[in-house]
């Protein structure tokens, strides 16, 4: 059943301040994420992606401001909220148990757990059965963890570097399964450096840079504002609309701010490089940093 707090804004950050001892990471961060969407969270190493995910799941507490996840305060770690959140870590550490024992131990904490769905996912991803989980390869463990997480039917699914360790066929399976898992009352957040793995999957791009989002848009919005071209000669770096350029085979690839595009498919990696290289110019042409 879809309840009111599972439609619309599912996650809200309001004026969040957070930092570690020597480094302020977020200074007054505001944003909201809506249900029925897959968000790609991108950023350089140390930009705060993992910290952001840990703040929204209640593993870290903000120093100031408020976070609401499904109308809960994550700091309280309410069991009802926790049963609606599933986080797939970059390196899953599973206990020394068989898959059956793991499920028997853990599934009871998730009221929406669907064992037949788990079985079908494990079969689809060809995860070996009946083995001690720690004896599985990294990729197999990730697939098992992903299948278990999806079978818990959480409203918020957080995937931290989900494709690391997956082989090429498994990456394809991952995209298919994640795309099928999206529902109106669910939100998926994928934090990754492997942008190629998720560019066909995500609806929205969040690029985190120096404590704020320099890109907070849907791919369709970006596609209507950005154009990528192949040039024989190096484009004039003083050109007002040039956001980024890099050498490529037979010339240069350039990223332009151009509202006259026809919504073509975007190369997420180039988009990311353009945003990181020239954040002020990028945000100027893509409507700037989102404010609540």
């Amino acid at each position, binding site marked *: 059943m879809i309840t009111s707090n599972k439609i619309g804004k599912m996650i809200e950050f309001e004026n969040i301040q957070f930092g*570690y*001892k*020597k*480094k302020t*990471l977020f200074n007054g961060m505001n944003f909201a994420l809506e249900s029925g969407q897959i968000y790609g969270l991108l950023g350089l190493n*140390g930009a*705060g992606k*993992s*910290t952001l995910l*840990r703040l929204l*799941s*209640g*593993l*870290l*507490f903000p120093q100031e401001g408020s976070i609401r996840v499904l109308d809960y305060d994550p700091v309280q*770690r*309410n*069991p*009802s909220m*926790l*049963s609606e*959140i*599933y*986080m797939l*870590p970059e*390196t899953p*550490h599973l*206990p020394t*148990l068989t898959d059956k*024992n793991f499920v028997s*131990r*853990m599934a*009871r*904490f*998730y*009221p929406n757990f669907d064992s037949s769905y788990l079985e079908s996912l494990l079969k689809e991803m060809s995860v070996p059965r009946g083995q001690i989980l720690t004896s599985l390869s990294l990729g197999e463990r990730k697939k098992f963890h992903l299948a278990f997480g999806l079978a818990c039917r959480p409203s918020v699914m957080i995937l931290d570097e989900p494709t690391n360790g997956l082989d090429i066929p498994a990456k394809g399976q991952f995209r298919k399964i994640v795309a099928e898992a999206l529902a109106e009352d669910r939100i998926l957040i994928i934090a990754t450096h492997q942008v190629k793995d998720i560019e066909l999957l995500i609806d929205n791009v969040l690029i985190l840079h120096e404590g704020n989002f320099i890109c907070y848009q849907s791919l369709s919005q970006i596609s209507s504002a950005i154009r990528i071209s192949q040039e024989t000669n190096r484009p004039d770096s003083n050109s007002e609309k040039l956001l980024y350029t890099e050498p490529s085979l037979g010339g240069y690839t350039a990223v332009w701010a151009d509202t006259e595009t026809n919504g073509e498919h975007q190369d997420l990696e180039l988009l990311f490089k353009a945003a990181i290289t020239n954040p002020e110019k990028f945000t100027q042409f893509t409507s700037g940093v989102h404010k609540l």
Partner: protein
Amino acid sequence: MTSSFSVYRLWSLMRSDFLAERRALTWAAGILIFTVLLMSLQQMQWGQMDYSMHQKLYGYALFIWGIFATSRAFRVVHDPTRNEAYLLLPASSLEKFFARLLPITVGIGIFLPIFFFALSAIVESVRMVIAGTSLPLFNPFNSEIWKLYGYYIIIQAPFFLGAIWFRRFNFLITSFAIILFYLLLAIAILITARITIGATEWQQLHGQNSLQVPETGAINHYDYLNFGIAHDLFHQLLTTNWSFLATVFWIVVALLPPVLWWIAWLRLKEVQVDHGVQ
């Protein structure tokens, strides 16, 4: 789903912990059985009859196993590879707290006497068959057993707090912290007693040679540090109301475990993962 406490979730957590620790529990039980058998065999060999052997071993097991298990109670919280999964497990902090507290207080209090009774029955049956003699079985209803258990609960509580408070070497650091606390407490009591009671009464209470405080003709410490009312009050308390003081002491001791457990629960509620630049 109730927000803060559900018996089902608590049971699920305890079941999950038991499954995770069952190998360690089996080892601990095996070591206990081996120790009791070894001591019995040794006594048979030397023709000794230690009538309190089972009770003594119960005491050792309770304190060594109990304190060791208590110090490891929140190991998962300090393990960066496992703490995220633990904290994200859909159960409240209160349930997670009780899931760790109950086995090492109520659980061990029920399990160990039953275990020792069964073990003593087996060991003494064997001794009877081999040596023709036997020791009295371990009696779980002996008042000494429950007195030991009471002491265990008092001693266990700071180690439980230390388990959540300190990140590593929980047992050692907690032990040092307790020693330091008692040293400071002893110094504070000595100074307070010296100031409020004065040299004369101090010597009367503790014997002439126990603590000789030099008194100079120039400054009489007793007069100089005499706080009047405090002096009289403490003097009265120590000389005529000793039973009252003893009662206060035992009330404080009895309140210590719940207070320390409560602080441990607050700490568990506030624990965050270590991540990123510290």
